């Protein structure tokens, strides 16, 4: 079977779903960040696939590059926040970071 647009979209959909699953079920803050990376990668696969099979040119790839830049920025700030949480609470369990709830 010739590989086509649907194959790439299926991979992107599975990446997104597993990412969402990770974000929803992990208690570890670093694990949640990994799930976000998976979600962004699923979106990026879709961008590149639509660019190749539907649109043409490089617009989709440029958009995917912007997504990569934002993902890198998000990872840096997110991990800095995780480290700050760890210094404060001595754990990175996201359920224990509830200082604002009281």
């Amino acid at each position, binding site marked *: 079977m010739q590989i086509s647009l*649907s*194959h790439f979209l299926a991979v992107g959909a599975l990446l997104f779903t597993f990412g969402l699953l990770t974000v929803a079920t992990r*208690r570890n803050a*670093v*694990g949640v960040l*990994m799930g976000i990376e998976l979600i962004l990668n699923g979106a990026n696969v879709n961008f590149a696939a639509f*660019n*190749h099979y539907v649109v043409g040119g490089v617009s989709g790839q440029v958009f995917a590059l912007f997504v990569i830049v934002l993902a890198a920025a998000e990872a840096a700030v997110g991990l800095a926040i995780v480290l700050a949480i760890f210094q404060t609470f001595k754990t990175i369990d996201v359920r224990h970071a509830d200082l604002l709830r009281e």
Partner: protein
Amino acid sequence: MNFTLGKLTGWIAAAALTIGFLLAMSWLAIGPAQHAVASRAAAPGGLVDGLFYAVAGLTVLGAAGVALMRSILYSAIGLLMALLGVGSLYVFLSADFLAVTQLLVYIGGVLVLILFAVMLTNRITDVEVSNRSVGLWGGAMLFVAMAPVLLAMATVTPFAVREPEVVLATTAAIGNAFLTKWLLPFEVASMVLLATLVGAVVIARKELKAD
């Protein structure tokens, strides 16, 4: 004994993945350009297809590992597999610059950062730290609700697919697009990166207590 066997399997899998990535890259980068006329007709579509299925399977397997592995360190290894697989998929989509950027930024940057955070914050031997809270049932229900819908949408929707041209190298086109059409977002992205750099340092540094 068991541990060394697992380690050996891991190394073999990593080596196979790397070799597959390099093969895919060379096949798709050099193959069409070198014998563009002959290979399109004669090239076994089966080889490229098999390669695609292998890479896609490894990608999805890695993503599943991120979601389901008990230890956070194994999750990081799964993330490595998934990111590497996505980079190889970019090669299939003739997005060479994107593939290299994925390799540099994600594997070289984000993944190392994540591993760094895991080592800094986690008691690695403590499995309890990376347990899940919603539990297996909530996660399974979420997966069963999401995945079929998205997969059906991906396969059923009739997109206006055109004949994809063989793009040789996209780097020059991407550079031109960045500096002409997307100049403002490009500059904004650089500002975002600068702000991120400063912000990450400010957030993560140790607070100096002023007595």
